[in-house]
């Protein structure tokens, strides 16, 4: 444990040092840049993070201890790169959001970077106090970030809850560490492993300490019953931070858990297998069941992320005496975490893009018709949701399959069965979101019809809202020109009832005098179905017969890019979404290279 500072190999921690420099650079830039140029910090951060990755990749294959507290091996390099990529993604999807919703956004980027530093350290820590400090670095950045929307009460509430419960859990964790130190006399993971093997676990203090540590870590990974903070905090936090917490913070928690359990407590695997099986069942079942009832996208994704943590816990339960199976389980967990990072970022990235354009709306029903107005965003979100549900072609299928296969090999078929049933349940609420995006008509367009050129002709809002009752009469919106009419069902609260005239969209696809309708038509939260419309002949209206088939919508009735005014998506968002989509499909269609990489990482973990 003793070391000479002058003889440390700083080359091993280059990425950390570069990142540390980047954190201070970001804060420095914040002091110099005017408010309207703050997003430049985001771009600088992205560039710096790329440099970080470039310094981290050469460390692949190195297996060394730094100062006796940080372990550099394939496992930590894998997570380093994963967290850096995550941070890049968060930066890309944050910039527009921060500009719109977060005043004084300068510190924001630095805090995200600092949290990332903490996460990387969590994956690399080989010693419990270092791990604790890394976790606190992440936590404190997160506390600030969650309550960053200072004027938003929900954000404040979320921050307060998070810091109270965070402090609570961190004190439990610290207490657990001290108990462990008290019984074993060391906090260095390899030493712990040796002591446990030699002494066994006769000491009650050890058991209590272990429980406390697991509770503290369970807080980070949001395992039931330590998950309670998640929905409230996720809902209140600025959405990019929700993404950050749900993805990176959780993955970092798992990295630490894996390091701790396998690096330090592998001899005890028979004891904790049952505990993790139980936690897995509770976590995924509760997450999925409650997610069904959610109508708020952020809460829905919060419960979904709880469920996803449950799937990863299945992998922990599969760590058995058979090293081959245990390594496969570890690979499965890492693979699933990697896929989950891209997948969930895709969902959140798309949702943030939506929020940027819709004044921060966050109900599921608000997404209605998104595919018509922002096809790429909707596609990204759909891919993410399908991947979360574990549909083939997408990352989620491959990663879950690999993970559950490990569990099956560990003879935990009952657990796999529960996991599969849970996946099925999850598909339901994911599809609800897809339904809104793809099947429903965008709000304000319920009574829109098509003119001869394939543009949506928008109904304007009636000056007499008392006519809403008339919405039940479809003829109100019947087209004089014999065009296609899309009607909503016309229940109370739907927009159709208030339309009695027609506005025309300009040829550039922007509503000329109908913008008011988009802004003010209340979202249909009563569950009224947007009918596809009274189309006489599919295809003939798909932008006219001169629209080639490959540009026609798969829904057959209209080509979205022609029909409705398109949202403009900023470049940073598009770049981020593309990155996430690439990750989803790369893992979903060609997972072999990733599994090869994980081979080395899992071996390193067991060797460490």
């Amino acid at each position, binding site marked *: 444990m003793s070391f000479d500072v002058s003889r440390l190999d700083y080359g091993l921690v280059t990425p950390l040092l570069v990142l540390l420099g980047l954190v201070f650079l970001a804060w420095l830039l914040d002091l110099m840049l005017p408010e309207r140029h703050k997003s430049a910090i985001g771009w600088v951060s992205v560039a710096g993070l790329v440099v970080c990755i470039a310094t981290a990749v050469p460390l692949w294959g190195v297996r060394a201890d730094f100062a006796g507290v940080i372990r550099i091996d394939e496992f930590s390099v894998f997570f380093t790169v994963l967290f850096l990529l995550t941070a890049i993604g968060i930066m890309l999807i944050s910039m527009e959001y921060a500009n719109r919703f977060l005043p004084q956004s300068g510190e924001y980027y630095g805090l995200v970077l600092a949290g990332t530093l903490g996460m990387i350290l969590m994956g690399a820590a080989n010693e419990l106090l270092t791990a604790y400090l890394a976790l606190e670095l992440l936590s404190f950045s997160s506390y600030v970030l969650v309550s960053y929307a200072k004027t938003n009460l929900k954000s404040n509430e979320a921050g307060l*809850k998070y810091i109270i*419960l965070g402090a*609570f859990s961190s004190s439990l964790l610290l207490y657990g560490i001290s108990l462990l130190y008290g019984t074993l006399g060391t906090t260095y993971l390899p030493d712990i492993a040796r002591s446990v093997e030699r002494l066994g676990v006769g000491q009650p203090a050890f058991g209590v300490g272990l429980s*406390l540590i697991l509770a503290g870590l369970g807080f980070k990974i949001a395992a039931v019953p330590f998950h309670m903070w998640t929905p*409230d905090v996720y809902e209140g936090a600025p959405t990019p931070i929700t993404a950050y917490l749900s993805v990176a913070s959780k993955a970092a928690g798992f990295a630490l858990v894996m390091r701790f359990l396998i690096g330090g407590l592998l001899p005890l695997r028979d004891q904790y297998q049952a505990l993790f099986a139980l936690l897995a069942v509770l976590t995924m079942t509760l997450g999925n069941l409650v997610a069904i009832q959610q109508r708020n996208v952020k809460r829905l994704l919060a419960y979904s992320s709880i469920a996803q943590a449950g799937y990863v816990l299945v992998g922990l339960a599969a760590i058995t005496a058979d090293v081959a199976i245990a390594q496969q389980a570890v690979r499965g967990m890492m693979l699933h975490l990697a896929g989950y990072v891209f997948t969930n970022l895709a969902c959140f990235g798309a949702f943030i893009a939506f929020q940027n354009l819709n004044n921060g709306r966050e109900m599921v029903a608000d997404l209605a018709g998104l595919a018509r107005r922002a096809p790429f965003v909707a596609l990204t979100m759909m891919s993410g949701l399908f991947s979360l549900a574990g549909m083939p072609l997408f990352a989620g299928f491959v990663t879950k399959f690999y993970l559950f296969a490990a569990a099956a090999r560990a003879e935990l078929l009952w657990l796999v069965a529960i996991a599969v049933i849970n996946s099925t349940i999850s598909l*339901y609420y994911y599809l609800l979101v897809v339904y809104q995006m793809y099947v429903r008509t965008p709000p304000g367009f319920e009574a829109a019809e098509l003119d001869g050129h394939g543009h949506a002709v928008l109904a304007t809002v009636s000056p007499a809202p008392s006519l809403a009752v008339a919405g039940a009469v479809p003829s109100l919106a019947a087209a004089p020109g014999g065009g296609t009419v899309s009607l909503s069902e016309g229940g109370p609260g739907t927009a159709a009832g208030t339309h009695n005239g027609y506005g025309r969209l300009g040829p550039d696809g922007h509503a000329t005098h109908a913008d008011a309708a988009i802004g003010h038509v209340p979202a249909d939260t009563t569950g009224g179905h947007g009918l596809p419309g009274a189309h006489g002949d599919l295809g003939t209206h798909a932008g006219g017969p001169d629209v080639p088939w490959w540009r026609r919508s798969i829904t057959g009735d209209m080509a979205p890019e022609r029909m409705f005014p398109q949202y403009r998506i900023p470049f940073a968002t598009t770049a981020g979404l593309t990155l996430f989509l690439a990750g989803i499909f790369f893992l979903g269609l060609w997972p072999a290279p990733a599994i090869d990489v994980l081979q080395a990482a899992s071996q390193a973990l067991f060797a460490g």
Partner: protein
Amino acid sequence: MDIAWLAPVLPAAAFFFNVLIARQLGRFKHGVAAAAAIGSIVGAFAVFLVVFLDAQAHLGGPAHAGGIKLAAPSLQEEAELPRRLLFDHIPWFSVGRWDFYTTLSVDWVSIMMLGVVGFLASLIQIYSIGYMRGDNRFWWFFTVMSLFCAAMLGLVLAYDFLLMYMCWELVGLCSFLLIGFWYQERDNAEAAKKAFITTRLGDVGFFIGLAILFLQTNTFRMDEIFEAIDAGRIDPTLVTVAGILVFMGAIGKSGQFPLHVWLPDAMAGPTPVSALVHSATMVAAGVYLIGRAYPLFVASPVTMAVIATIGTITAIFAATIALTQRDIKKVLAYSTVSQLGYMVMALGLGAYTAGLFHLFTHAFFKALLFLGAGSVIHSMEPVLHGTGKSPNDVFWMGGLRRRMPITFLTFVVGSLSLAGIFPLSGFWSKDEILVGALDAGAWVPFAVGLVTAFLTAFYMFRAIYLAFFGAERWRLAVAGSGPVTVAHAAGGGVIALEGPDRDTTARHGAATATVDTQDVPAHLEAGDHGGQGADHHAAPHESPWVMTVPLLIISVPAAIAGWLNIPGVFTAFGDAIYYGEVHHEGLNLAVAAAGLLAGVLGIAVATIMYWKPLLSPVAVGASFPRLYRLLYNKYYFDEMYQWVIDHVVLGISGLAAVFDRKVINEGVVDRPAMLTSRLGYWLRFLQTGRTYNYAFAFVVGILVAGVVLAGFRPDFLQASLW
């Protein structure tokens, strides 16, 4: 020999070219597609010629004085030559531990079919240029025809059951697409559906049979399967079962009793399709399958008996229906069914060469007949347009021989050949089947064959007399549709040339009499087209050369194809195509005379009934009203099936639907879904929003974790208690 695979590949390439490229060419697509289709099938025919000439030197078979071998190897060499060359090195796909290769076989049977398909498809597609002119899906017709040719040629060459089954289903698909080519009319769409579903019933059996064979031998290759059967490696019972199941495929495809119902309806397709797909080639695939998989069937006497029985029943059963049909294509369709039954019967009786020989000759004269019928319909269509009368109805034709002499002539040649009149091809092949039946000691099939020959001659000449002779009855139809009703002249628009009901015919006696005396009321004579209603109607006229030239060309093999196997004189066909030992039926003069007599008798009866009215068809029909109705309604088979579908199939599906709705949907899906949703609803209340509740959950969690961790080590708990 090595280029045989090109035969199916060329039309397949044309198909893909048409679908991917030609269809993008706007108004040129029709011409380009037709050119590609015809070019490719002519190319395939050229491939056949090359293979055919090449095969002389490479395929063995006993030397015979009558052989047509152009470059005959010496006797010594020839005995050592293989019967067939297999090309099986093209990897197809792998499943698990099985690798599948496509196996193609070049032997005399497949070469014969290559020639038949290539020849007829080329001419029929040229004919189609005229027939389909002006159709707005002209290009699609040729595209599907190309796909059909590719599949059919692939089927012919295939020597593993898997490839054969794939091509088998592909020709079925093309048949479906072509029958429903004019799907805008509901009847045509229904006919296409009926054909597809009915043949599928047989195909299911076929597939199960293949599955049995595959499970027994782990291969789809025919040679290996037959070897296993010969060596007795498969349980004889299973061979019988598999044989009958495979034969079910042939029953469906070749329109054998009781799955024959789709074939007459299939005439809803364009007539060239009827000529190529539904008479000459695709429906013959069933017979071809029997010939191909002959060792499988021969191995089991039971299977052979089943085949012979089905064939015999079909032959006479369909011939009797053809007696009363009014639609010229339906007459031909039932004739096809009947003749296919003939072939199946022959194969079932062991007369391998005879069965395939009849398949060979029948392809030509039946294609010729269909093309002739198409020519007639093509010219009747504009005449009867708008009258509500079907241009296929022979009752509305009459007197066409003067107006369409080429069509008439070729049609008569085809009919004589089909009727088995010496020396046309039908005579030779039919004779051989009858001799084969006699040799097998099968008296019933022999008698049935004779009776069928009689019936065949009768219904063919009935159609000829009605269509080409007598009064020009289409004038009545044209007149009847006009604003001035000529009910008194035309019998209210109903022509009762024959029928089961004496009263009805009596009521329209005047009209019937008028028609039967070959006279048309004076004001309907040529030059005066029956008043206002007919002014815009042209008279029927001969079809364009693009249709008549193929007719003339095909009439040559239709007449003389039978000369390829004249007992004792020239037996090239039998030398090349045989099963086991070469087996030439001697010329049995008695049988030949009997067969010829049956044909002549049939023609004679038709003559006295429909040409010289010595015997009134009305009277004959009215004498046996029930029989007439039974035949006219095709033994009520469609009604029977409809009843079964309505009451049994739909009954079962109704029960299944109730089960699905009540048990599956409500019980297994909705209930758990509701329960899940409800659980989520209740669990939601755990989320109170109060931070101290959350912290309490922590504590519970820690306690549970401690207990679980301890629960597996009692000593841990003990130690903590102490």
